[in-house]
């Protein structure tokens, strides 16, 4: 048993979960800011970005060190590759949070606007996907990860519906184009959060089962 190596793998996992905590907080604050039009929350989201970026670099370096120094094989190799990929996806979720925060600040002037899209519901669904994907990572549960993939269809459909209704709004009320575009971008940001959660879930499946299920690809049975 390579005790020292196992400890380093555990540390890597813990660091990624700390990073995940920062990212989840950022997306939570950004969506809360949308509901409350709280520009201070938007500022907090922006302030969290450097810390997330720094953690991404540190985790990548730690993973790189383990690849170089320990020459991992099989499940350990797959775990480190999964960590590297999940790390990148988390950082992108953080970027989406910053994007949402920026749009919310613009929308702030139009707080009374009745936007025909249920952004909070979309936000709740995409956040649930992230949480579930991370739970699957924590527990090494490929079945739980698999369940995340089906949620993505719902998020995609809500985003498409947002495009339809906001497009209609722009046509019928051109004076509201600016607000509609901001809402459209937020919807797109949240849809991307769902995509990143899907990627994280696929990486968990890769780690646990050794199966690459990205882009709907199903490996042939041996």
């Amino acid at each position, binding site marked *: 048993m390579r005790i020292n190596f196992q400890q380093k793998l555990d540390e890597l996992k813990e660091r990624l979960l700390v990073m995940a905590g920062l990212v989840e907080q950022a997306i939570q604050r950004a969506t809360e800011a949308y509901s409350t039009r709280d520009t201070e929350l938007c500022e907090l989201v922006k302030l969290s970005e450097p810390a997330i970026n720094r953690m991404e670099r540190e985790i990548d370096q730690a993973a790189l060190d383990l690849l170089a120094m320990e020459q991992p094989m*099989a499940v*350990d190799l797959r775990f480190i590759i999964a960590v590297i990929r999940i790390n990148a996806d988390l950082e992108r979720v953080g970027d989406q949070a910053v994007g949402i925060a920026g749009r919310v600040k613009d929308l702030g002037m139009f707080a009374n606007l009745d936007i025909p899209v249920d952004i909070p519901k979309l936000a709740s669904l995409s956040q649930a996907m992230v949480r579930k994907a991370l739970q699957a990572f924590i527990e090494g549960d490929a079945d739980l990860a698999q369940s995340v993939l089906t949620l993505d269809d719902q998020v995609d459909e809500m985003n498409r519906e947002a495009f339809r209704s906001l497009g209609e709004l722009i046509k019928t009320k051109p004076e509201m184009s600016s607000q509609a575009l901001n809402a459209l971008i937020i919807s797109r940001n949240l849809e991307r959060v769902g995509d990143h959660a899907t990627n994280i879930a696929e990486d968990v499946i890769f780690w646990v089962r050794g199966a690459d299920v990205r882009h709907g690809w199903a490996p042939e049975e041996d």
Partner: protein
Amino acid sequence: MGVGIRVENLNAWYGPTHTLKDVSLHIPANRATALIGPSGCGKSTFVRCLNRMHETNPTARAEGTVMMGDLDIYKDAAPVEIRRRIGMVFQRPNPFPTMSIYDNVASGLKLNGFRKRRILDEIVERSLKQAALWEEVKDDLKKKSGASLSGGQQQRLCIARALAVDPEVLLMDEPASALDPVSTSKIEDLIFQLKSQYTIVIVTHNMQQAARVAENTGFFLTGKLVEFAPTHKIFTMPSDKRTEDYITGRFG
């Protein structure tokens, strides 16, 4: 050109100890096949059965079928002929210490009755070139003994000696385990070049080495072949839990 080896239900014993149990596998021609596993797992016994070296131990015996192409090596040919066609390189370089570099390489040919100087010269040069040693020793072929070379050079000399008798298969039992990283790298480069002409079977404890040089890898445990698959699969997604435990260091 190399030739493939098909092994079916191979069993081997040392005295009463059953060291190899019902091993079956196909070693493809002109490929490097790595055998890995913990000490005492039977991988060295397995390769020694392939060229009938196993039976040189008076208490040892083997049963089963080993086909080299269409040749049943336990029925259709004498051990000496088999060992000419299936060469072997061992863990510790073992050049004949009192012989010159030239005579080390030519020794197998001379034993087989080759006497013509010109042909011997040609084969010695070709074999040393194949073993990537020619440039380092060409001026000292008859002046220096095999033992005067460095460990890495001695191992390449042994490879040249094995190649000189024109084998079809080359068995390598931990050929780089006693060598420094630079010499190891040369041996690995050599394996890469040689497999276009020979079928190579390499026993190794160094899993990174197996991953680097071999197209296929077999994992042995307690005398059984647990898993045999393309190397990239063994080292990324092994099918058997025991293989995974071994290569990730969770074994035992």
